[in-house]
Each structure stands twice: as C-alpha cells, then as structure tokens.
C-alpha cells in the first residue's frame, strides 16, 4: 500500500486525491447513493494556498466524448464541507432529496416509473 508522507503542520489525515477520493461513490447522511465523485474544484486563498471547495459529481465522460468540459454553471457539485468521512465511499451530511444533481433520476422516476402500475410499491 502507498505510504503517504506526514503533513508538515497538521495532525489530520493525508489523503491521495486519486487513490482515496476520485471516482468513489458519494453517500448521503442515510448511506443512500448520490453519484460518484468525478473531479474537484479548487480555489486559491489570499495566502496563496489551494483549498478544495467543491466536489464535482459524475464522470464528465459524455462532455469529454464531444471534446469539451462541462461549463462551470452546469456542473453538478457538492460543497466540500458537507463531507463527513472518506472510506470505501465518501460519506456526506446532506439528504439526497435535497441534491439538485439527481434531477435525471427524478425525471425517470416521475415520467416513467410512477406511470407504470406498482412502481411505488415495495416489492412483494
């Protein structure tokens, strides 16, 4: 396993973005899946330090196939400070019903699944 160096002035955990963060499943506060973490948005503070501000959801592959990145205004993101744990998946403190990024799922649910009888019932 990769041995990560100690961070010079923190006692916190040092994490490799590629290995432990990117492409991990994101979970909401009830462990329900949101999407996968595809990329990170960084911002530079006044002292010149870079901080992660947001996690970009989704792989961005569809845009990539057409030779572009998704414009910043259309990206599905989650703020960094709602993340509570980094393990096999990324745990957050948000309710998935409040996440805008899941609009496609809601579209399928409202326009297809509920129209079919039995769509809202528990499997029996």
């Amino acid at each position, binding site marked *: *396993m*990769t041995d990560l160096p100690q961070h010079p002035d923190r006692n916190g955990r040092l994490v490799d973005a*590629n*290995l432990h963060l990117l492409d991990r499943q994101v979970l909401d506060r009830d462990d329900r899946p949101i999407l996968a973490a595809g990329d990170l948005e960084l911002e530079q503070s006044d002292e010149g330090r870079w901080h992660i501000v947001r996690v970009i959801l989704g792989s961005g592959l569809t845009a990539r196939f057409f030779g572009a990145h998704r414009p910043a205004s259309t990206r599905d993101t989650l703020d960094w400070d709602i993340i509570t744990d980094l393990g096999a998946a990324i745990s957050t403190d948000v309710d998935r019903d409040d996440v805008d990024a899941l609009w496609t799922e809601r579209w399928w649910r409202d326009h297809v699944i509920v129209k079919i009888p039995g769509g809202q019932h528990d499997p029996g």
Partner: protein
Amino acid sequence: MRWRRPVSDRRPLAVVAAAVLAVALAGCGIAKDPLGVTLGDASSAASSAALALEQHDDGRLTKAAAATMVDDARTELATAGKQLAELSTSGEQTAVQRDALDVLARSVQHVHEASADLGSSRARDLIDRLRADADDLERLEQAAVDAR
C-alpha cells in the same frame, strides 16, 4: 493502488501471444474437411430422428418432445443439404458428394414422413430406413475423409 492507463506497447504483445497460441494449437491437429463435417452432421441428424421415433414408439418420449427432436433433425438435415449442394469439390470427393446428395434427399424425405405422421404404425419401418440412411451417410463421411 490505482493502475495507470495501459501502456500502449502491451497491446501488440497480447496479439502476438494469441497468434502464437493459435499456431501452436493448430499443430495439434489439422483443420477438418468441410465435406466430412457436413456428412457427419447429416448422419447425426438422421440418427437423432431415428432415436426420437424409437423412443416415442416405446413410450419413453412425449409426443411434444419427440416432435421437437424430429423437427430439429429436419432443420439440421436441411442445413447439411444446403451446405452439401454449395460445396465445391474436386477429384474423388466429387463422386462422394454426388452419392451423398442422393442419400441426403432420401433421408430428408424419411424425416418429413416421420414428422408428418408421428406415432403411426409405420414408425418401425421409418426407424430402420433412417438408421440405414445414417449408416450410409457415415460411410460416405469416411469416404470423403479418405478421398482428401
């Protein structure tokens, strides 16, 4: 551990390995003679139809199962017939092909009778004829392989 994107020079290696494997295996045996294979399939189909009729006559197969088996044999014989007709042969194989076309036409007729009249009193007779057809086809298969 996260893998890097596969290094591009690994792909030709895989292709070479596959080719070497294929060639090495090819050395284990010769590719099969197409005429022989077709006649083998036809013989198998005729035997299969005979078995179905026999077992149905003995009360060991349902009518549905026997009819299915005879129908499958009919399809296989038709495919073999088509392949046989389309094969271009040379030398002694041409004679074998000619004889085979006759035998195949006969066995197609027998299977046709069998499937039209499953459970008839002529079952035993048809079984014998189909078995004879199968034997003839197998003999011709051997002749085809020898004539290569």
